[in-house]
């Protein structure tokens, strides 16, 4: 069953999706200090409007390939917070039984992998499969400004356009590839990269979920119409470190980008009462998810190999 899917034209539902992602990941980051979560993770905090806007205009069975920063996409796709928390804690009840962890999850038609660039052709192949099966589904692949350095991406754009495949390339430019600013990693034009392959692009520099939603709606309609691939370029801000503690940005810069907080931007459209109620609802959901996951067993490697 899907959980808390964002809905177009439903301001409260959009807000709740973003808030769920925010509070889920804040809890996740805090659980590292309790030792309940180990390893690493890549928080989506700051970028929530992208996922909420996009998944409010997709169909439930569309095929999604996400990347290392996948929790927000997964939760906006309708994934259950408890199954994700269990996966992050390495429990048998996790999405993939603790085998994948933060970057490598699969549920229904949602997939993620931790390799930049390499996921792009895989998603193109998925789009091809949906096309030949005439399912009407489209594929979405989430890439970032950092992915623009990977050659496999350009091979994928070329083939997707050549074969007119139903795939949406969502590029979330959060201005940093780990610690490398986009100015030091990307030359020329980002949209020009898609245009060079004849792939139409919609580009927005905003953290307003409604703006993102309307652009996403147009791109998704274009892809679903059979016109071939499209791209959605979203300039956004990552408030958290790339993973856990690796953030060389200045306090001034971090303070500056906080003014674009999508929760504040969109929260202005809700009443204070609605916001407070959403907070308390989501606090319960997240607490339940983590507590329940914490009680679940750790997997044991099967003897048979």
């Amino acid at each position, binding site marked *: 069953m899907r959980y808390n899917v964002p809905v177009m034209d439903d301001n409260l539902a959009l807000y709740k999706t973003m808030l769920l992602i925010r509070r889920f990941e804040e809890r996740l980051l805090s659980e590292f200090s309790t030792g309940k979560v180990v390893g690493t993770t890549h928080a989506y905090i700051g970028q929530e409007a992208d996922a909420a806007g996009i998944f409010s205009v997709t169909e439930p069975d569309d*095929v999604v*390939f996400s990347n290392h920063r996948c929790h927000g996409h997964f939760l906006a796709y309708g994934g259950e917070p408890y199954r994700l928390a269990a996966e992050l804690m390495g429990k048998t009840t996790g*999405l*993939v*039984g603790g*085998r*994948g962890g933060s970057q*490598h*999850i*699969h549920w229904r038609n949602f*997939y993620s*992998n931790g*390799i930049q*660039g*390499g*996921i*792009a*052709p*895989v*998603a*193109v*192949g*998925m*789009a*091809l*499969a*949906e096309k*030949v*099966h005439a399912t009407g589904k489209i*594929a979405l692949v989430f890439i970032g400004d950092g992915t623009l350095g990977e*050659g*496999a991406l350009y*091979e*994928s754009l*070329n*083939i997707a356009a*050549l*074969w007119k495949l139903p795939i949406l390339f969502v590029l979330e430019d959060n201005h940093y590839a780990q610690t490398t600013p986009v100015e030091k990693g990307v030359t020329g034009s980002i949209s020009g990269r898609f245009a060079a392959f004849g792939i139409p692009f919609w580009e927005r520099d905003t953290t307003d979920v409604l703006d993102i939603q309307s652009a996403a709606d147009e791109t998704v309609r274009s892809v679903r119409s059979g016109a071939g691939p499209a791209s959605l370029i979203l300039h956004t801000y990552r408030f958290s470190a790339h993973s856990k503690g690796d953030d060389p940005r200045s306090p001034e810069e971090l303070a500056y980008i906080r003014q674009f907080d999508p929760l504040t931007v969109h929260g202005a459209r809700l009443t204070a009462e609605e916001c407070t109620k959403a907070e308390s609802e989501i606090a319960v959901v997240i607490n339940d998810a983590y507590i329940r996951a914490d009680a679940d067993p750790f997997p044991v490697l099967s003897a048979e190999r």
Partner: protein
Amino acid sequence: MVTVLDRLNYALHHAMETDDRVYILGEDILDPYGGAFKVTRGLSTKFPARVLTTPISEAAIVGVANGMALRGLHPVAEIMFGDFVTLIADQLVNHASKFRWMYNDQVCVPLVVRTPMGGRRGYGPTHSQSLEKMFLGVPGLKVVAPNALGDPAELLAAAIADDDPVLFVEHKVLYTRPLLEPGKGDLIDFQVEQIGDAYPAFTLRSTDSARLTIACYGYNFELARAAALDLLMEHEIFAEIILFSQLSPFDLEPLFPSLARTRKLLTVEEGTLSLGWGAEVAVRAVERMDGLRVRRVAALDLPIANAKSLEDAILPSVQDIVNTALFLIS
């Protein structure tokens, strides 16, 4: 005369006729060209919608095939030269081979990547290598090589039917070789026994008094057979040959009955010597049976030269096998 190429081509035709989930992807595979080595000849004429000619984009060819396999199709990707597998390493190692296990067995990846490996055609350093050793031992990836003894069509059909990704390594000299028939030609002196079904191994014996076991796969079976006959005719030494089709994961059970008789193992491969197939076979054999003597025959640890005189010196020869065998039993 039926060749290895004929059988591989037949297997692709048969798979496409009987299963509309089968797609072929690769560079220059459309008729009338039909692929650089003609393995895909005739397919695009008969199944134009399911034979997809691609740009020169090896990573995307295998990546796209990966995605197709995850979503219920059975793609067969052709990589024009085996040397180009370096370009698909990410897709094989970090995507195709991992998905099933990483996603807790909730998906399967019925993907076949076919590619011609091997030298002896004068193609030089980047079109002659046997790079399959780089993919041996990758969890979740099978590496399979046809030979002229088992039916290459059945082997390829098994790979296409497999739920897991298979790297299917075809030695390019093997394409024009006729299929061998047990009891005929230079197999007349051997009893041939098949072990296993999908990716079988073969044991070749002629007597109870064999003094060494030669392990090999693919085209090098041709060299091993010639060496075994030379050892017999010139030196009155009997050798048993174990011919593998499945290189990885390592299943060496077919080897041990023979080693129990001979106590001497000689491995033959065309990849470079260091950290090769033979090294793993040898150490596994020694771990299993104390007191074995082992030797490896492989290419020198050098790029493969273009000049025939140099290429011949770099790649293993029948004489190398004979000489190493004589040393092994001395």
